[in-house]
């Protein structure tokens, strides 16, 4: 008789980062909606932050939103030197309370990116989650 998978492995499989990344590459945010209270989380959570429940259903959200804040990096971590200057941005997703952050190339000065600019997720690569201006 085969042993039943542990709760941990079941949860882990559901929350594989690959699934999140595959969606990010399509410009979508894979969120997890609590089946008890409906609270939305990014994929990488194991228990509901609002009610403690541990079952979720997938919610695929359009990766479009508004720039809440950002920085323009001129002294970078290793591997990002060739992209300087670039922005790291926090975007509020449309129609939800969720926010997502990521890399935005081609930003040289604050004039290039007023707060409130509309933007969208466009992919995921060695730079992390990629966000571009709409």
């Amino acid at each position, binding site marked *: 008789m085969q042993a039943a998978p542990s709760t941990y492995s079941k949860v882990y499989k559901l929350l594989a*980062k690959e699934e999140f990344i595959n969606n990010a590459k399509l410009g979508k945010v894979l969120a997890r909606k609590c089946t008890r209270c409906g609270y939305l989380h*990014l994929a*990488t959570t194991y228990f509901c932050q609002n009610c403690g429940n541990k079952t979720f259903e997938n919610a695929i959200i359009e990766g479009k939103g508004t720039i*809440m*804040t*950002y*920085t*323009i*990096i*001129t*002294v*970078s*971590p*290793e*591997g*990002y030197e060739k*992209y300087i200057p*670039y922005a*790291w*941005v*926090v975007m509020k997703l449309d129609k939800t*309370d969720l*926010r*997502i*952050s*990521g*890399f935005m190339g081609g930003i040289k*000065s*604050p004039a290039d990116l007023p*707060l409130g600019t509309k933007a969208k997720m466009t992919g995921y690569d060695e*730079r*992390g*989650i990629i966000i571009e201006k709409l």
Partner: protein
Amino acid sequence: MEKVCVIGAGSTKYGKLQDSITDIALQASVDALESAGIEPKKIQAGYISNVFGIADKQVHLGPVIMSNLGIPEVPSLSIESACGSGSISFREAYANVAAGFYDVVLATGVEKVTHTGTEWTTTYFSYCSDFFYEGGAGASFPGLFASMARAYLAEFKATEEDLAMVAVKNHDNGFLNPKAHLRKKITVDDVLKSAIVASPLKLYDCCPFSDGASAVILCNEKFAKTHSKNYIEVIGSGRGGSPAALQGREHITTIPSTKIAAQAAYKMAGVTPKDIDFAEVHDCFTIAELVDTEDLGFFEKGEAVEALRQGRTRLNGDIPINPSGGLKSKGHPIGATGIGQVVEVFDQLTGKAGERTVKDAKIGLTHNFGATGASCAVHIFKSV
């Protein structure tokens, strides 16, 4: 619970140090023991905070320090909580003495990174973020705080000059601190003209990468009364957490863990922010001091800037903030910083702070967090 006291405190100079991580940790520990006037044999446990021991080829620092103090049989705990390691380690030391497990313990914090250079430190420090979303998308630590700064400046009509004034104030204080890393006065213009690191933050908005070690001796009240005439009491201890990533927070201009930790510490101490005579807060970047002093309840949200402009947070103001010079000027050896803040409070409340003494101070507060405030500890002390 036992009342917990701090009976000794010691620190190396903060800055670029030549000695090894073990040596500087020992120098601070020995200073703290001598300050307390006790032999190492009295120590029953060690709490050692450090983040990047790997950079100086020594992790598992606890037993190495205990062995070098001649007490290899004494248990120790090595603690990493990013830039909050020191205060979070102090909390563990406090809790164990309060619970009655030990009568006397040593809490030592240490960091040795400057020999690795800016690229290594910028990269490795970024591992303290929620890496998938932040460091792994090109965010440096200055960049994360710069994002908080841009949101704050927009929301509260503050300016980059206001941020610069935080740096100027803390350098004025650090100038009076013989152990400060950047012991020089600067002007608003110096800050504004310094190189941009992560817009809108410039080099002088950022604390330096520092080496350094700090240590304190904690004990129960009975031991303090029989072994010391000049000590302070821990009257409040609070911890809190925040979503690890900035994107997880509804408001980017406040740090939830600070509020949670502060409320717990105030409640335990039976005091309010108005009772605090001075505070050492986590000013890793100028923006952080503004956010911290609001989250700690010294000022309403958005009003820290006006308080700063009025000089209320200067050494001679009604609520001096960072009399030591803070992380900004005294320096930020990340594993030591939280312990270093306790050293400053000890020095202030036992008459050892020299020229930077806060007049008539009886109650001091320390506030230290890890990363962008994902973890936080607040402690409140009173003179005895």
